[in-house]
């Protein structure tokens, strides 16, 4: 077994040295290796397919066949294409002209939304903003308590007028949270919502209702980096059901290769904006496309 794609490609190019040109069979072998590496990294199948076709095209070109080390050249191309897709039009958070700026979080169950609310709150506070966290997950047992605890750790106040555990209306809480922020002049409102499945029409409607009640400036789709092929279906369901403006990839401190980043970017066109990299509130950073590309390729 070869450790990574680079080694595998180098090996598949071994016989080639001195031949000067890549044969059709060489190219097939190369594309097959890349396809496998991307699938092993959980990049979505439709994205892999497009990607492999592009690589095939470029592998036939002079830039590769005339290169001194064609394997390295192909990897360079693959890497560059990945960075381009992952990093296209990276941007900062959009702030409202008239505060408060509203940031709504949405995603599957257990993705890392509540933790992210506190991380984002802390990060914004350090930049001089005055954020408020809003506890609109009234469903999952003790989600409100959890937000209160992490809010406290982050030094960010929490709007939690309802106890949760099935009691209270999440849409009303979101609305009153934004009103409270306006009254007390908080500059940013971060709305934590319950986890929901793409196929849960009722819960998706609730998310849309929270959106309509708060007119968010950003809706961040929170996605676990360990997710597999379901990333596309789920991302499409959230894009359609609530719409999102950016993506946050969580649990990047693990050893998952995180191909979902590429899938979601490739399928929805929305930028990955932040990375969550641990359970501590400081484990949070801007997303780096180049690091992600190397990670997906396992290099």
């Amino acid at each position, binding site marked *: 077994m070869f450790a990574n794609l680079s080694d595998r490609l180098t090996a598949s190019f071994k016989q080639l040295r001195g031949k000067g040109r890549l044969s059709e069979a060489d190219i097939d072998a190369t594309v097959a290796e890349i396809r496998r590496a991307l699938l092993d*990294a959980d990049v979505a199948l439709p994205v892999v397919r497009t990607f492999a076709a592009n690589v095939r095209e470029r592998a036939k070109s002079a830039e590769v066949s005339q290169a001194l080390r064609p394997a390295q050249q192909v990897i360079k191309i693959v890497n560059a294409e990945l960075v381009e897709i992952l990093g296209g039009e990276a941007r900062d958070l959009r702030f409202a002209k008239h505060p408060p700026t509203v940031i709504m979080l949405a995603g599957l169950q257990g993705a890392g939304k509540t933790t992210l609310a506190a991380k984002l709150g802390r990060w914004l506070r350090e930049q001089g903003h005055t954020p408020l966290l809003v506890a609109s997950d009234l*469903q999952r*047992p*003790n989600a409100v308590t959890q937000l209160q605890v992490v809010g406290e750790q982050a030094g960010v106040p929490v709007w939690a007028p309802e106890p949760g555990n099935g009691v209270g209306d999440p849409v009303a809480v979101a609305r009153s949270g934004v009103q409270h922020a306006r009254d007390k002049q908080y500059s940013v409102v971060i709305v934590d919502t319950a986890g929901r499945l793409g*196929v849960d029409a009722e819960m998706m409607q609730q998310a849309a209702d929270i959106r309509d009640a708060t007119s968010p400036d950003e809706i961040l789709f929170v996605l676990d980096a360990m997710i*597999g*092929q379901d990333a596309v279906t789920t991302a499409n369901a959230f894009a359609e059901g609530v719409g999102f403006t950016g993506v946050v990839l969580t649990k990047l401190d*693990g050893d*998952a290769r995180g191909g979902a980043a590429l899938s979601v970017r490739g399928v929805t066109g929305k930028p990955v904006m932040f990375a969550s990299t641990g*359970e501590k509130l400081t484990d949070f950073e801007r997303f780096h496309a180049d690091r992600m590309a190397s990670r997906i390729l396992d290099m």
Partner: protein
Amino acid sequence: LSRGELTESDWEEIEETLLLADVGVGPTTELMDKLRTETKVLGTTDPEHVRDVLRRELLQLVDPTMDRELHLEPVVGDDGEPHPVTMLVVGVNGTGKTTTVGKLARVLVAEGHDVVLGAADTFRAAAADQLSTWGSRVGVPVVRSDREGADPAAVAFDAVKEGRRTGADVVLVDTAGRLQNKAGLMDELGKIKRVMAREAPVREVLLVLDATTGQNGMRQAQVFAEAVDVTGIVLTKLDGTAKGGIVVAVQRELGVPVKFVGLGEGPDDLAPFVAEEFVDALLS
């Protein structure tokens, strides 16, 4: 699949079904090779028939004959006293451990068992509160620390001790989510298990895998199995669009069966794993 002869694109469609279900490139390629050989031997080109063969092959891989029961037979310790059956629930962050403990307690109570829960996640914000809510939902006591950041092994130990004291027959211990690449946290898990075992042997270690997990699921299973000897898998969130195909490779590699599936967030949303149902859902 269309009627008549199988075209190359029919084959691709079959392969796609497997890959999209997170079965993984390795097992998918093996299955495809087998399928091509077998259909050649059978001389069949009927898509319907090919699909039957695939279903059979996949079912064989998932193995309906595996023992998927929880081991709940009463144990008697060296001292001649009965011990509660103790179970540890482990996994990476956010997969559904705490929820599974709650649901499993519900099942066990319905079967007439006396259950005690142990809140050995002393790290995650409000984790013990969450488990306590589940405890009152399903009517079982929860042993917890009143201190955040308490030693999880000590809480687990106390839970088992409490189970013995009250004559409970099952003690279920919830643990904090941890990523398998964090050696320190994996050592901590090993310690929790060892300390529990001083009171009573740990009978079941259930690894909770999220059905949306891709190829990293294999790594999770390998490392957790190494650290605490996993005896069963719970595949959660199967009520979504994900198929959970990674467990096919996990079961084969580790020989550890999936015992339950999670089908929702409510107390009754836990079901035994049925190989036929899993395979049919995967191929649908």
